[in-house]
């Protein structure tokens, strides 16, 4: 398939291998490479204030978390209402180490890539444990299991002195080859780290989805009894899906803790779990590109809501707490509207656009 996919009138794959390729043409690959290069180069040309850099970092971290959520909810079809708790497990693993060894221990400041992996593995462990009921149960009960994990996690952090009872646990500044990462370089440094991780993890998941395991995830979602008859183990596949989601969430949590230089309970509550679900739904469940669209769209909406609240403070009485009211309201509306009118999310708009352009000026 070397001819241009944009002008082809249909799929002319002659082998399964050709169909499973990630980049179909040289053009695709070049466009992707240029796009990546642009993502890495633009901070050198444009100076962005720390506030917006933080927003960008947040979006990227959410993307890592949503890739995990999309694996378990989108591809494996199991609702997870406790994803923020898994992210919290990652963050609090790091915080736990910081609290035991001191917040500027060499493990945290120098061996931070190791800590990221460690937090991911701990997240995977918890994910697999919560997914255990999947060995005998369907998604309905699993949703409840994740919800109860969220509640247990919140209680553990809030009540145990080991975790400072939900107060922020500080984490020290980290070191790069050139020395300690200073205050003004903090956000830009993490932008590069997180962006690299997003690219690596995105490619890894894209690759995973065409392997035996990735395809068995989708098979189990679509019909688990048929998948069982084909020789897959539905229960174990689901547990693996939860473990994988836990890994991504754990890495995202560790990054979150490093970025904010501390871990506190308010970033890992049930509300945050629902926000993650909203991101996954808006982006498009069961699509990898959706995991990138969703966080960006929701954070953008979040910023707009904040601006609107600031603007309305000029003429509305201060007793009316618009900020706490409007956020859940908009998230809820976005979830419901997308589920009712565009269940396949923003990722589907891109597909619609592409087919429209491809067929233009003819209608289907």
């Amino acid at each position, binding site marked *: 398939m070397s001819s241009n996919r944009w002008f082809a009138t249909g799929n002319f794959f002659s082998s399964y291998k050709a169909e499973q390729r990630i980049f179909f043409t040289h053009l695709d690959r070049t466009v992707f490479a240029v796009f990546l290069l642009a993502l890495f180069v633009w901070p050198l040309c444009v100076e962005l204030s720390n506030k917006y850099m933080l927003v960008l970092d947040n979006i990227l971290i959410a993307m890592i978390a949503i890739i995990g959520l999309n694996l378990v909810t989108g591809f494996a079809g199991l609702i997870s209402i406790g994803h923020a708790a898994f992210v919290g497990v990652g963050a609090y693993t790091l915080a736990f180490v910081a609290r035991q060894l001191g917040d500027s221990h060499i493990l945290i400041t120098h061996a931070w890539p190791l800590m990221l992996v460690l937090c991911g593995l701990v997240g995977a462990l918890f994910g697999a444990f919560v997914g255990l009921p999947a060995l005998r149960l369907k998604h309905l009960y699993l949703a409840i299991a994740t919800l109860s994990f969220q509640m247990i996690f919140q209680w553990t952090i809030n009540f145990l002195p080991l975790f400072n009872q939900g107060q922020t646990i500080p984490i020290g500044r980290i070191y790069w080859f050139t020395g300690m990462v200073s205050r003004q370089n903090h956000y830009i440094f993490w932008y590069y780290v997180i962006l690299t991780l997003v690219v690596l993890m995105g490619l890894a998941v894209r690759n995973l989805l065409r392997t035996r395991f990735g395809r068995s995830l989708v098979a189990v979602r679509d019909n688990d009894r048929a998948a069982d008859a084909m020789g897959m183990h539905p229960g174990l596949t689901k547990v693996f899906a939860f473990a994988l989601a836990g890994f991504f969430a754990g890495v995202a949590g560790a990054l979150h803790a490093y970025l904010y230089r501390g871990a506190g309970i308010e970033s890992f509550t*049930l509300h945050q779990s629902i926000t993650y679900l909203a991101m996954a739904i808006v982006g498009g469940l069961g699509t990898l590109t959706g995991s990138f669209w969703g966080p960006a769209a929701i954070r953008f909406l979040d910023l707009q809501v904040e601006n609107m609240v600031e603007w309305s403070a000029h003429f509305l009485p201060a007793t009316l707490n618009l900020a706490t009211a*409007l956020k*859940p*309201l908009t998230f*809820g509306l976005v979830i419901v509207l997308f589920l009712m009118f565009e269940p396949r999310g923003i990722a589907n708009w891109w597909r619609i656009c592409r087919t429209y352009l491809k067929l233009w000026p003819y209608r289907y």
Partner: protein
Amino acid sequence: MTYFFQLVVSGIVVGSIYALAGLGFVLIYKSSRVLNIAHGQIIAAGAFITYALTVWLKVPLYLAFFLSMGLTFFLAMSVERVFLRRLIGEPIISVIMVTIGLMSILDGLIYLTPFGTVNYSFPEFFPKTPVDFHGVSISWTQLVGVTITFLLIALFSWFFKRSTVGISMRAVSDDQLASMSVGISVPRVFGLAWALAGMSAAAAGGIIGNITGLNFETLHAFGIIVFPVVILGGLDSIIGAVVAGIIMGLIQQFAAGYLDGHWGLNGTKDVLPYVILLIILLFKPHGLFGTHEIERV
């Protein structure tokens, strides 16, 4: 021993309210297979409506109680009509997520009202001196609340077992296609199930509001504590919800009474139900009274 009986009494008070809340939840699940995650918000709405009627509009309490039940009847029915009716036949995963969205929307709407930020409490309607029985005491509000709760549970059970509407609801939960063929309108039954669940939630909300005061956080926590209750009782069993509600109330009170303060533990009653929930899901997922679903290809 008095301490033990005191815990039993307060456990039954809390448990009966869980039972009433769980009842509404099971009603919806039984007839339409929807996990209603927004149940706590409906409970809170019921409590706030009762308060607004009694204190702001000066309606007598018993009348306000019934009025708020009537209002939530229509509120829940319209929620079903607007959001869930068009999702009939969609995969169950998107229906559950719509109720998650609904929870968020109702949260936002309640935060817009004064109830989201200010903690109100009902004026005292009953004598302040508690009823004392050999050292075990129970306040009048609690006593009246428990009595009303048990009356309502009995009424709902009777309605579900004997009345024509109740029988048609049970028929739908048993087999949708067969019940359609004998002339039952399935969407109407779904709407009614939501409406009745809204009614019971409002009643639970009114009683909780009188006993503990109107804090939005505590009220909507009732919507989440309902999950351990209904899983323990079996998701589709009304009698299970009632029994499990009372068991859960007792467990919570015993945990608070005997575990807190020892071994550095605190607030165990907030976490124990969820630990129990995870254990039940692992070992006896259909609960005490739920039906075992056997799948055949």
